[in-house]
């Protein structure tokens, strides 16, 4: 039975923490993880596997844990799939096991195990194909079995934060190697960030009790961390995982700020995403121990030797009373000795190797631990917990076992199949890996970014070497960052160098024993239930590339991404194919290193902050007056202003009618405005717009169309000539930024000889558009120095002046087809202007109108909206605006208009559309066909771009793009949508005031 020792460990026995796992209450201490606390309480069964629902306990003590995944917390704070090994215990913690029903112990899903012979890797590709219609049902069933935890609930109660950071040296991993590097860099005054995903620094020192500078290793750790914390420009972040290593030394870190607490401290985020730009990176990420692939190696109680050691030293938890150990390398000998010293029985240490250094053997002998050389564990007994193991002699070729089966009674098995340097981040950084035959592991090779890999991550498993390595990397980083050392450099830390050991015996699968044991499952990927025979099957079936093997068997695709399994899988595949491991290669390491919360990646940009909301100076007025808003680019513009009892149609009709018959008021602030100055400004516009600009008089305005080089309309707007060399361009609201970039790109890269400056002045002015037959009366009533008579202030001109005491620039342009003035005032005066207009306009029942009414009004007079009548495939000629296309000059897009297809006569052209049913507002986006009642595929000749009810016309009307439509006015076509169709007559796209006299009034 597992349990807690009376003394030792980095836990606080004086404080007792209560927690729940699957409805049972347990107790633990600060310093515990959920995993260690459960073990201390004698709990071993912690989860069920993905496919066969086999009972599972802990394999590891760190981030590599594949089995013990729990759902933590409850309600909206619940989070699935957390590794119990990484969950720090707090008082009141609630956790639940997953992937089981109804309970962890009695899980119905376990029946899957019975059918396991039918479910080898990739079985689903071979079946469930008949009958065709049945796949739906099969799939439904498959899905119920899949997945691990349950989805969280919406309504996350916590917040997440981002943090940009810059440093000279980013040290990833706070074990001896990383600490040595960080210490060196910090002492020289460098900007250092040191991170470790553990709850405390020390890395393997926390678990193995090694000494540094002749003192307990953890004392040295405390000193180094204190140094860093005291330094002005260094930070040490525990509970922080480097999740991604991107281009140009950009590293993302995920800090668990509040996860170890019942709830994050007030105001603090739960997690924080760091985005670090480091001049140098030191990767000191350590190494992960490999399990051994042996029969029933997934039973609760079969654990990595380093995990057994870590639980012992960190939390004073013994994983069992009798712990057998099996290894292929030297590192497990310490574990045996320490277990024994803690009063745990160690029935034997079973080493695959034929011989080991005499010193090691002697250490065991001194403790009275039996050493079994050239032996292997061929079977683990026990279902919910280890009951014993069978040991046999291993043949020199490692392919067979022989001799007598020796049963060892034990309640846990500690195993060490060697060590894999944690090269994930190095590989992500673009570095190549090299396979080391002796270690049986991939080591960092060449390439990558400005970084050094040190310590166990570089395949150095000796403490003294790790310290020296780290220290040297710290120095090198200083040099690379150009930091001169301050003062006398301290000595590097020292530790006793270990004596040369015996190389590991790399055996990728331990042969199975005789009889029934021969078919026992030897798990490689514990989480995804991938066995040695699955891998062999895949190779046999021709899935030879390791990438195919991965995808066919799903090995390494679980939440642990194969941290403990990938190299074993490779070894087995290479063996099956008779290839070198180096030739097989690894699968690709990808971010994140360990799973990263989506909420943290989203940070504070959720809800309304998903995207900035832009506000006009009059926004508060619109809000106060009940406007309904719609997003236009990042703006929220009033769509209409409903009065009590009005629906949208009623409100829009009222607004349209009021504007056409008396006076309307529109917030037009959002239009893009670009100030264009310079002696070549007119020439520049000539190249940008389709029409001519050189002869436009100062004081006048002109409508322009811009094309992309492919000849298609890109933007439009009115541009005014403010001076000989000075223009004021307006653009559509959504395109303002794109147009300015467009102009700059031409000026700077193609035509640098043009002397022109473009500046955005969009935000400078508030713009109120007054529109309607009474607009002039209103303007005149405001008082000021402007003469609004048609002669003094004709259509398509502008003037500066004072209006109701406000300095203003007034453009007499019209988008509604009515007599209109666009009044520009300083943005800060927007509300003052608006309120003045509302007050003064009351005499004419001035009516604020929104974008919807604006759309109706402009459509009545046939004005287009870019992005509505156009969609990137429409030329000016298609729009009937050939008069605006200059023949006399070149302009962007001109040549494209002459291409065979673009010059074709029967392209889709803009027309008006009058439904025969005058009250039928056909949907925008409805298609147009020649005749009703045809069966699909029905040839479509066009589509509806805009469609409204016009209270002025007293009928519905629309605009459309129709093949050859320009020549088909008067003909009847069918408008089709959702299985309906309605006849409508084509007409010129001008429904009201075709000669434009109202705007010119």
């Amino acid at each position: 039975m597992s349990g807690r020792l009376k003394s030792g460990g980095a836990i606080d026995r004086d404080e007792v923490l209560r927690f729940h796992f699957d409805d049972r209450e347990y107790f633990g201490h600060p310093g515990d993880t959920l995993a260690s606390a459960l073990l201390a309480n004698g709990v071993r069964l912690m989860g069920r596997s993905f496919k066969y629902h086999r009972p599972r306990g802990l394999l590891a003590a760190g981030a590599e844990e594949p089995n013990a995944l729990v759902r933590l917390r409850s309600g909206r704070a619940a989070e699935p799939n957390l590794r119990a090994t990484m969950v720090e215990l707090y008082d009141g913690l609630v956790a639940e096991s997953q992937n089981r029903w109804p309970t962890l112990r009695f899980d119905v899903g376990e029946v899957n195990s019975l059918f396991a012979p039918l479910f080898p890797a990739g079985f689903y590709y071979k079946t469930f194909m008949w009958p065709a219609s049945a796949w739906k049902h099969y799939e439904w069933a498959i899905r119920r079995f899949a997945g691990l935890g349950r989805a969280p609930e919406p309504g996350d109660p916590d917040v997440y934060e981002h943090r940009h950071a810059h440093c000279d040296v980013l040290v990833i991993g706070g074990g001896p190697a990383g600490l040595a590097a960080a210490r060196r860099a910090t002492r020289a005054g460098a900007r250092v960030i040191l991170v470790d995903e553990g709850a405390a620094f020390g890395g393997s020192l926390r678990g193995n009790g090694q000494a540094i500078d002749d003192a307990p290793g953890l004392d040295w750790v405390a000193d180094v961390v204190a140094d860093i914390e005291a330094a002005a420009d260094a930070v040490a972040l525990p509970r922080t995982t480097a999740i991604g290593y991107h281009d140009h030394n950009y590293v993302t870190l995920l800090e668990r700020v509040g996860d170890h607490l019942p709830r994050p401290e007030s105001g603090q985020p739960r997690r924080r995403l760091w985005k670090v730009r480091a001049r140098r990176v030191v990767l000191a990420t350590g190494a992960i121990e490999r399990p051994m692939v042996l029969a029933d190696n997934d039973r609760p109680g079969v654990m990595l030797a380093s995990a057994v050691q870590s639980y012992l030293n960190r939390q004073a938890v013994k994983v069992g009373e009798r712990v057998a150990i099996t290894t292929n390398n030297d590192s497990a000998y310490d574990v045996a000795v320490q277990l024994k010293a803690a009063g745990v029985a160690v029935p034997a240490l079973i080493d695959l190797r034929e011989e080991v250094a005499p010193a090691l053997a002697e250490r065991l002998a001194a403790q009275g631990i039996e050493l079994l050389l050239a032996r292997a564990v061929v079977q683990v007994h026990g279902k919910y917990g280890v009951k014993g193991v069978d040991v046999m002699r291993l043949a020199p070729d490692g392919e067979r076992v022989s001799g007598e089966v020796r049963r060892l009674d034990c309640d846990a098995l500690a195993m060490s199949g060697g060590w894999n340097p944690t090269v994930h981040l190095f590989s992500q950084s673009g570095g190549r890996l090299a396979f080391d035959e002796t270690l049986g592991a991939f080591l960092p090779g060449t390439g990558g970014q400005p970084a050094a890999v040190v310590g166990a991550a570089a395949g150095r498993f000796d403490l003294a070497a790790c310290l020296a390595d780290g220290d040297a990397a710290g120095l090198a980083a200083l040099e690379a960052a150009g930091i001169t050392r301050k003062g006398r450099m301290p000595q590097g830390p020292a530790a006793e160098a270990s004596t040369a050991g015996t190389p590991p015996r790399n055996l990728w699968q331990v042969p199975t024993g005789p009889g029934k044991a021969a078919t026992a499952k030897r798990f490689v990927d514990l989480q995804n239930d991938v066995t040695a025979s699955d891998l062999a099957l895949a190779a046999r079936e021709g899935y030879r590339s390791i990438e195919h093997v991965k995808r066919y068997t799903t090995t390494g695709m679980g939440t642990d991404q194969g941290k403990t399994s990938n190299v074993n899988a490779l070894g087995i595949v290479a063996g099956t194919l008779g290839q070198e491991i180096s030739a097989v290669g690894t699968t690709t390491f990808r971010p994140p290193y360990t799973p990263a919360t989506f909420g943290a990646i989203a940070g504070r940009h959720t809800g309304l902050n998903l995207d900035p909301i832009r506000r006009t100076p009059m926004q508060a007025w619109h809000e106060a007056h009940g406007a309904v808003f719609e997003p236009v680019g990042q703006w929220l513009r009033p769509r209409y202003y409903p009065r009590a009892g009005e629906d949208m149609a009623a409100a829009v009709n009222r607004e349209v009618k009021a504007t056409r018959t008396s006076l309307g008021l529109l917030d037009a602030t959002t239009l893009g405005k670009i100030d264009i100055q310079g002696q070549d400004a007119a020439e520049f516009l000539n190249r940008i717009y389709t029409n001519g600009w050189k002869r436009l008089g100062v004081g006048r305005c002109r409508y322009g169309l811009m094309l992309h080089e492919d000849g298609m309309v890109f933007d439009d707007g009115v541009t005014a000539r403010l001076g000989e060399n000075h223009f004021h361009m307006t653009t559509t609201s959504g395109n303002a930024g794109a147009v300015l970039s467009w102009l700059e790109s031409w000026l700077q890269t193609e035509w640098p000889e043009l002397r022109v400056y473009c500046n955005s002045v969009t935000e400078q002015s508030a713009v109120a558009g007054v529109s309607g037959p009474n607009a002039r009366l209103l303007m005149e009533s405001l008082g000021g120095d402007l003469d609004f008579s048609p002669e003094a202030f004709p259509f398509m001109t502008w003037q500066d002046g004072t209006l109701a005491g406000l300095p203003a620039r007034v453009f007499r342009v019209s988008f509604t087809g009515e007599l209109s003035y666009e009044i520009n005032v300083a943005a800060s005066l927007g509300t003052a202007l608006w309120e003045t207009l509302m007050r003064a306009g009351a005499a004419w029942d001035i009516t604020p109108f929104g974008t919807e009414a604006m759309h109706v009004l402009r459509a009545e007079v046939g004005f287009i909206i870019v992005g509505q009548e156009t969609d990137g495939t429409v030329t000016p000629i298609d729009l009937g605006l050939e008069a605006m296309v200059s023949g006399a000059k070149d302009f962007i897009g001109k040549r494209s208009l002459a291409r065979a297809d673009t010059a074709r006569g029967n392209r889709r052209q803009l027309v008006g559309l009058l439904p025969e049913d005058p009250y039928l507002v056909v949907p925008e986006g409805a298609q147009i066909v020649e005749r009703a009642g045809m069966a699909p595929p029905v040839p479509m000749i066009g589509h509806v771009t805009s469609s409204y009810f016009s209270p002025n016309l007293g009928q519905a009307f629309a605009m459309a793009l129709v093949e050859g439509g320009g020549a088909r006015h008067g003909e009847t076509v069918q408008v089709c949508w959702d299985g309906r169709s309605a006849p409508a007559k084509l007409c010129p796209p001008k429904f009201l005031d075709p000669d434009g006299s109202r705007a010119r009034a």
Partner: protein
Amino acid sequence: MTKYSLLSLVRNAGRGHRDWREAWRSPEPKPSYDALIIGGGGHGLATAYYLASEHGLTNIAVLEKGWIGGGNTGRNTTIIRSNYLEDASSRLYDHAVDLWEGLSRELNFNVMFSQRGVMNLAHNEHDVRELRRRVHANQLNGVDAEWLWRDEVQAFCPVLNCDPAARYPILGATLQRRAGVARHDAVAWGYARGADRRGVDVVENCEVTGFIIRNGEVRGVETTRGEIRAPKIGVVTAGHSSVMATMAGLRLPIESHPLQALVSEPIKPILDTVVMSNAVHVYVSQSDKGELVIGAGADLYNSYAQRGSFPVIEETVRALVELFPFTSRLSMLRSWGGIVDICPDASPIISKTPVRGLYFNCGWGTGGFKATPGSGWVFAHTMARDEPHSLNAPFTIERFHSGALVAEHGAAAVAH
């Protein structure tokens, strides 16, 4: 070749699965073939399969520089649909959907085509107009399509955030019920197995490094495994199309960009359809294994690196958390990138070239997985007959000269 079935599975289980044959051989390339396909992605393998099965050309080979399916076929979010705007595209993609429906049985390999429906969300009036335009066009073209208003969207996909006060509220959505997802790797493997069975050599680890062209006619290729001759060569190399074009002295209107995707940790079923949003850029489905498969955006610069930048992931995840608030406490498991071949009009090129006997099938960009069977089918026809099928006739390279583009920006604006 063992036929796959429940029966054969049971029989093999009895023998410890020791007798399964390889799904496709690994032959040495021959010095010459009747035709070559360059690129062992889904499209290339499908082309080979249909050349063999529909046109009787069996002395052919697929040359793949790495492992089959290792390009975009193996890294896409597997969305299959045919609700494209233009007649030409909807016909082509719908033909593919027809083929998808029978594909598992045709190949005797379960590609798990799951018709769980695809929704495209509208978040503003412009989206509504454009998406409905597409629905109406689809209906008239005989492509199944429906328009759902907000309440119907909510009912169809209860976990979506349909709050009208959202920053970009959901106003409605298109729904294509016949659409869905499939198991991407199985598509490559299934076609490879099917082609292999008909005699096609699927040659992996064989990179084409040059073309042998004489008098404007293609004669063969140089590869890392020697020269291979053939009078007809189809290039189906997706992200690497420009590289191949350069080797052949041609220019293409294509740029290669990184497109990223990611998966969440696996969770119990919660999302039974596919959701795509253009304005709030993300697309999401849940695989049969339980992970959410999430499509991100493309980086704006050219790259052949099969990895993208982190800001693209951030942007996608923001959208994910907004549309599916439950994901806030869920974790990203893995992210990766592919190299997509983007055409200016967001439509593919399936075309003859100025070099006789040399054909290109490329430009599928962010959305070609769905077309895999259809693309292979028409390309096989084009290669076998030396003239396009009517379904792919509009998708020539010459359309960029004449201006007769097949503009699918709206339908393709979300990478999918």
